[in-house]
């Protein structure tokens, strides 16, 4: 069993594909279907391209705050590829790639960061919870989703993401313990990208690894090279098996790095050295995965160029479309507070409509 062989207390970290794209642990190389491998790679390219463009748009004043995922693609796509369509994805806020893999459209994903709640109204069959800003609180949601799956004896699990910083929050503790106590089919992936805004991982806890926090809940915890899509895939595959068997949750620490800023409002140069960033750029998950696919003869440089080309166009077109969506309708901000608008809300809306009719548009100053 994977989780017995990698002990976080001994700082053993699972890696299958190293940063040169070499298999370093061939006994563990997962047997992933070709289409899946390609979907994984395409999603990573879409994620990366979207991030890069979004950062550009933001500099051009066309995008609001945006939290890029650059460098963390494997930590998201590996897990998602290991799951089944009926499984649930419970988000923190830095899982752009995971969302895309799971069926959130790029338009929706952009629309959210563009400042429109419609961006969190995913298609009906997309079992993804909206982006969750209050740190840690999503763990409890995932536990609840998993409780329902278990009670209804459904063959489904929940995967939930959290940052390294998030593990310090009380909600992390309560949710992990709740899930462990009731042996819920839940998988928690910590994206340890080494920073919580400006605060480095080492200042968030004295625990040598985040994976060892699993011991507090009596569940397995494992540290994984988060830039290795194969390792991330494998570990989630096994965690899913445990979950489905009724053995409860698993805690996975994906060791990765946030190459970009926390968000577009952040200047990482204030708190970290360029040299550190450069070290991690060498460990880029996309480069190693591409090498792996080419070595496996699943991919070619030519295909790669085409994909980049196509993706860029798709991202630009989609963003244009999003840009054209403009402000939301007035009704929209009132309509979803309750199932039915209360008399009070109707009155507030109508008064405001009267005002607008009289005075013209409100520009929020």
């Amino acid at each position, binding site marked *: 069993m994977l989780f017995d062989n990698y002990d976080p207390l001994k700082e053993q970290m699972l890696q299958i594909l190293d940063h040169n794209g070499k298999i370093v642990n061939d006994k563990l190389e997962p047997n992933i279907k070709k289409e899946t491998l390609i979907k994984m790679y395409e999603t990573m390219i879409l994620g990366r391209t979207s991030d890069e463009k979004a950062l550009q748009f933001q500099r051009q004043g066309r995008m609001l705050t945006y939290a890029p995922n650059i460098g963390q693609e494997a930590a998201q796509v590996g897990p998602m590829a290991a799951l089944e369509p009926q499984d*649930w994805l*419970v988000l923190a806020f830095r899982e752009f790639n995971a969302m895309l893999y799971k069926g959130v459209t790029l338009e929706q994903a952009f629309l959210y960061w563009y400042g429109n*709640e*419609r961006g*969190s*109204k*995913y298609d*009906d069959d997309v079992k993804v*919870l*909206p982006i*969750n*800003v*209050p740190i840690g*609180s999503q*763990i*409890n*949601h*995932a*536990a*609840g*989703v*998993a*409780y*329902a*799956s278990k*009670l*209804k004896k459904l063959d489904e699990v*929940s995967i939930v993401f959290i940052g390294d910083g998030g593990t310090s929050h*009380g*909600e992390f*503790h*309560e*949710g992990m*313990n*709740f899930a462990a*106590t009731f042996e819920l089919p839940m998988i928690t992936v910590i994206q340890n990208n080494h920073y919580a805004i400006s605060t480095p991982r080492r200042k968030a806890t004295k625990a040598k690894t985040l994976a060892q926090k699993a011991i507090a809940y009596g569940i397995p915890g494992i540290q994984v090279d988060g830039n290795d899509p194969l390792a991330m895939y494998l570990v989630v595959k096994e965690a899913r098996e445990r979950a489905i068997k009724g053995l409860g949750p698993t805690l996975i620490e994906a060791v990765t790095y946030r190459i970009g800023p926390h968000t577009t409002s952040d200047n990482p140069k204030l708190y970290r050295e360029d040299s550190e960033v450069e070290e991690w750029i060498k460990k880029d998950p996309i480069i190693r995965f591409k090498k792996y696919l080419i070595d496996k003869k699943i991919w070619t440089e030519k295909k790669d160029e085409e994909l980049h080309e196509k993706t860029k166009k798709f991202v630009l077109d989609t963003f244009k479309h999003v840009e054209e969506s403009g402000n939301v309708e007035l009704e*929209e901000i009132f*309509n*979803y*507070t*309750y*199932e039915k608008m*209360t*008399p*009070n809300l109707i009155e507030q809306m109508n008064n405001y409509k009267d005002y607008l009719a009289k005075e013209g548009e409100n520009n929020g100053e």
Partner: protein
Amino acid sequence: MANKTILQAINEALDQTMENDENIIVYGEDVGYEGGVFRTTAGLQQKYGEERVFDTPIAEAAIVGSAVGMAVNGLKPVVEMQFSGFSLPAYNQIVTHVARFRNRSRGKYHLPMVIRMPYGGGVKALEHHSESLETLYAHIPGLKLVIPSTPYDAKGLMIAAINDPDPVVFMEPKRIYRAFKQEVPDEMYEVPIGKARVVKKGNDITIIAWGALVREVEKALEITPEVDAEVIDLRTISPIDYETIINSVKKTGRVLIVHEAVKSFGPGAEIISIINEKAFLYLEAAPRRLTGFDITVPLPKGEPYFIIEPKQIANEVKNIMAFKA
């Protein structure tokens, strides 16, 4: 039809709705095996099993947060906060998620869930066991806040809360959990959320109260037979039934609001403001509040000062009746 206390009425509402709909589940600290510290959920685990009725670790954020996830995934959780004072560790979940999932997802997800919590003073309890925290929930868009004052309403409102597609905070006036009995229909029925109850019609003054204070108002009126008061039991604090209030005030022109919550920035202030907005010209006297003082609810040896007694209500009624514009 049988005589029941509020406690029994709530228990029956839970029991019957659970029998009817297997998606309803009930949990919280000590609510399972022993049936709750007040025994509101007694018998349910025995009947519906440990998976649907269970004890949780002491972790209010997990209790509420997991209910969010359950509701997203098709269940209807009815969770208990052991005392309203202990709902605060879950306050982040309630405000940032329970109240907002529908809006956040533009209706893709909604949360049919109920958060039960015994509230209010007068039971000689330890600290944090006597709070009246209506404002903290009424002020949050997306929540409904319901408080019964009778066994009949307790059952009907609880069933309505469970059936409601929106999340409902259900505060239970623990002081009168077992204080009296009332005929309660055996079958399931709903008392509509968002509708106040006119307890007594009258023309001189409108008295608005809820929870345990409704009975105190009734007692006060026994000692002021000269006043023909209209008594409104608000029942739903949010969204507030301003129609019933305004109609009454237009008739009486005088208003007293009685609540145990502390005064400043408390629930009574909203009622006065609504009356100002919608019935200002009908007012014959300054609307007044008789409320908890702006202090922490005292421990039992100081609590008597804090608890509103019928004589105090009667005194205020007389003051307002004496007001000359």
